[in-house]
């Protein structure tokens, strides 16, 4: 797997030379839009992450997780993963901290540690994505996009946690 990325880069650069393009100036052209992009994305990033940190440190996320965990148990997800599932759609850095905590507490190879890996590995920071993707447009109303994304991810997590118990 680790060979794939270097191979892709070599192929692309060589191909561009063969096609008489200048990969050096093309790269500059492309990367020059990076900072501009971040200028637009940053306000969303900082707004979401402040809320997530307050949510975690106030202990509200833990309390909410306590309320939901019986329902989680019902669908076969260990109660210890509830906070991870709750924070995951909101913040990548925040949920990574929760995951690290789970590994430290229960061990990376424990059933809970493996189930947590599946939950983290098969999901995305949905709220962050939805803010960032539309940051350059006027779109405000997303319809049912976020509920659909959350339901699908959660259903995937249930199936994944079930399978990690067997494999």
């Amino acid at each position, binding site marked *: 797997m680790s060979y794939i990325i270097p191979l892709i*880069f070599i192929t*692309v650069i060589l*191909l*561009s030379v063969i*096609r008489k*393009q200048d990969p050096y100036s093309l*790269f*500059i052209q*492309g*990367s020059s*839009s*990076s*900072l501009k*992009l*971040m200028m637009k*994305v*940053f306000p969303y*990033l*900082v*707004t979401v*992450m402040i*809320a*997530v*940190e307050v949510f975690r440190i*106030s*202990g*509200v996320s833990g309390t909410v997780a306590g309320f939901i965990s019986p329902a989680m148990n019902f669908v076969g997800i260990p109660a210890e993963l509830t906070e991870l599932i709750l924070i995951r*759609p909101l913040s990548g*850095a925040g949920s*990574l901290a929760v*995951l*690290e905590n789970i590994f*430290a507490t229960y*061990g990376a*190879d424990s059933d809970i*540690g*493996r189930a947590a890996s*599946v939950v983290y*590995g*098969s*999901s*995305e920071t949905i709220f962050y*994505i*939805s*803010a960032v*993707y539309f940051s350059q*447009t*006027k*779109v*405000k109303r997303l*319809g*049912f996009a976020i509920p*659909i*994304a959350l339901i*699908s991810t*959660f259903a*995937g*997590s249930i199936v*994944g*946690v079930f399978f990690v118990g067997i494999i």
Partner: protein
Amino acid sequence: MKIVWTLMMVVSIVTLLILNPQNTVVAMTRGANDAVRLSMTLVALYALWLGFFQILEKTGIANFLAKILSPIVKFLFPKSKKETRQYITLNMSANLLGLGGAATPMAIKAVGTMDTGSTRASINMIMLLVISSTSLQLMPMTVISLRASHGSASPADFVPASIIATVVSTILGITLVKIYGLFLKKREKKKEELGKSELIIKEKTKKELPLSVFKRQ
């Protein structure tokens, strides 16, 4: 998002106010700091991948990839522009390889080409958002390396289950968006019909108007 954010802020800050008010500013500052640190990482990642993708685009490789994947992309994103499909193809390839940092700028560009200036997200935008969220991923590198650093005996042993999970969530997500799209279409048709009948009524009243005016005179 509006509601979620406001709720999170209000409930959390009220709780902090009761339990330990001095932590409020600490927490908010830490969140802002995290965002700055993350944005620096992302600027670097965006620069790397946007540069790389510029080569892909101008060399015609992006076009080639888009052609190969076009049956799938056309099914998922009907009536999309060629340019949009190119960015979506790159976004999907990056996601598959587990390069989230590379996938995001491509998705932003794809959404940009789909933009009509409307405040309502189109069904194709919703599809892109859902597909990115369910993240069909072959190698969740972050988790693997984190497990390795916590002394796991085989850090990648959860990957099959994780792939099953993303396949399930992706298929379910696509199905739900397609159903939602059908529902939206129906609603639009109804609205159009309503609009037509209203027009007919208006025309009728217009026609009748001169008569009544005439009568009064």
